[in-house]
């Protein structure tokens, strides 16, 4: 039995000190997630409180079928999405991200778009400390249903299966949302790094299904 499993078992038996230790262990994780989802400290505090209140009230129902952290993300994700539905905090447009609109397109003469590999530029920009804010801004532009999946999967590092458990979606739905979110953030980075002048944005005149 790991230390965490021992704390969970003790918490399930009503050990207040064990519960407090669990809260301390995971409070940074939940706060960081909530701040990123809400972009607002007051809302993040609400999510934090609601999440751990949920933990205390439901700890007896927790089964080792999933990781404790996944279960925690599920409670926190529900709190974030519920906040959106209440309309308390909703800065993000809820329009669908269309893969068609995000796909690079050929120019008017049918030439393939120039797509550069700017990975090294991104690395240098990251080291200069200027990329994180741009990335956060790009993630903020995502519709919430895609944003929560990208944050859980790529920022917090959950697997596709764990993300599906946390947000109550199928693994296939998680993968679809993740892909659209990643392609969107990638495009924002490409534009920032100035690497794709020939990018055709939001082109609806041509539906492309045969070439990049």
């Amino acid at each position, binding site marked *: 039995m790991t230390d965490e499993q021992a704390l969970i078992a003790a918490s399930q038996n*009503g050990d207040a000190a064990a519960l407090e230790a669990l809260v301390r262990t995971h409070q*940074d994780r939940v*706060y*960081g997630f909530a701040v990123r989802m809400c972009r607002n400290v007051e809302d993040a505090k609400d999510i934090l409180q609601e999440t751990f209140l949920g933990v205390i009230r439901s700890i007896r129902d927790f089964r080792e079928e999933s990781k404790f952290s996944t279960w925690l993300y599920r409670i926190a994700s529900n709190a974030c999405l519920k906040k959106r539905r209440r309309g308390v905090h909703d800065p993000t447009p809820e329009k669908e991200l269309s893969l068609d609109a995000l796909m690079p397109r050929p120019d008017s003469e049918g030439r393939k778009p120039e797509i550069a590999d700017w990975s090294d530029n991104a690395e240098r920009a990251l080291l200069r400390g200027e990329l994180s804010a741009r*990335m956060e801004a790009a993630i903020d532009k995502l519709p919430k249903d895609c944003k929560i999946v990208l944050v859980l999967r790529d*920022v917090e590092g959950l697997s596709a299966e764990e993300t599906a458990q946390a947000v109550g979606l199928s693994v296939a739905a998680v*993968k679809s949302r993740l*892909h659209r979110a990643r*392609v969107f953030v990638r495009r924002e980075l490409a534009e920032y790094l100035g690497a794709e002048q020939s990018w055709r944005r939001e082109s609806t005149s041509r539906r492309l299904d045969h*070439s990049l």
Partner: protein
Amino acid sequence: MTCRELFERLSEYVDGELSQEMCEEIRKHMDECDPCVNFANTLKTTAELCRRLPSQPIPPEVAAGLRAFLSEHLPKSL
């Protein structure tokens, strides 16, 4: 495989979630298509950069507020 078909599967490809046959098809396409290679590389970089974004640690006063809130609501538990 067309660029479009590849484009749809790229996240699964960079995450290593596709079958060996599908990976072979993708690599075959990429041997002939530099834009797809570069798109795949930068999509992978995007995912890796997300993982390296710093998260805000909980400020001490927020942690103290949380503890006060929990003890207020559940005096017998905490």
